[in-house]
């Protein structure tokens, strides 16, 4: 199962810092659709970036079961 690490305000919205993704999520694009459907509160976090295996990833980037995916919102506190 693909592991999703959730950072910052996104983890507050999702109520978790770690979730397992269903196997049909096989691209960053599908991940974004999945998140919109299951976590509508993320909508206001319009700037979420996705990293796959510790590298920034575009929507077209494939995701497989052994990948480590991270969801990174901007953070502004100081």
């Amino acid at each position, binding site marked *: 199962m693909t592991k999703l*690490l959730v*950072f*910052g*305000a996104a983890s*507050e919205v999702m109520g978790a810092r770690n979730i397992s993704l269903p196997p049909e999520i096989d691209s960053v694009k599908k991940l974004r659709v999945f998140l919109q459907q299951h976590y509508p509160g993320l909508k*206001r*976090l*319009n*700037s979420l*970036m996705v*990293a796959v295996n*510790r*590298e*920034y990833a575009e929507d077209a980037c494939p995701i497989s079961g052994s990948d480590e995916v*991270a969801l*990174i*919102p*901007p*953070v*502004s*506190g*100081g």
Partner: protein
Amino acid sequence: MQLTGFGREKQEALSQARVLVVGAGGLSMPVLQYLTAMGVGTLGIIENDRVALSNLHRQVLYETRDAGKPKLYAAIAKLSAQNPDVELVPHAAFLRVENALEIIGSYDLVIDGCDNIGTRYLVNDACVMLGKPFIYGAVFQYEGQLSVCNFRGSATYRCLFPQVPGNAAVPGCNETGVLGILPGIIGSYQAAEALKVICGIGSPLANQLLCIDMLTGGQLQIRCRPDPANLQIRELAASYWQYF
């Protein structure tokens, strides 16, 4: 004292460097203290806020009796006592479209210790226009982010976060709170990255976003790439504060 790989030439580079710290809040505390202690040449500070009692849990340079005083002068009084050899330059203002290019223009390196998203994009755009590297750092609750931006063509803040977020998306420390020590950790890393850039030691965190999680002690180092379009900024936006 001799440190392998940090000889006279590196110390000289440090003592010649001109560094601007944006903000004198939580992130800036270790940046100011350690760059002063290590003997940076010129240390500019831009800040126009006053010390509040609610700052003191994370802004360790200030004392209870400083409450109500301008942060800028409270900080400079302490830093000049710490090391009178550092040239401390006060800029009693907030960074704005009107002053950013002129102020940043006279420094070699900028450290972004601000506490709001508007200033972060302004620091970015001004530094890109002027060709200055800057050290990004930010905190949220128990987490921090860090990156060395615009360093020899490396990714900028707009490469890390191309889509400017709305206000609700990025709460600051005063809204959601932060453990006092967290900006201490991230600010210490910012000071270390500044030293690496100034002295040419180690590998600065360029083209990388470092995410640190205080609760687990773990970190994630994420590779990113510069988007050439983001290196072509020719003018500042009319305002960076529509988000607030």
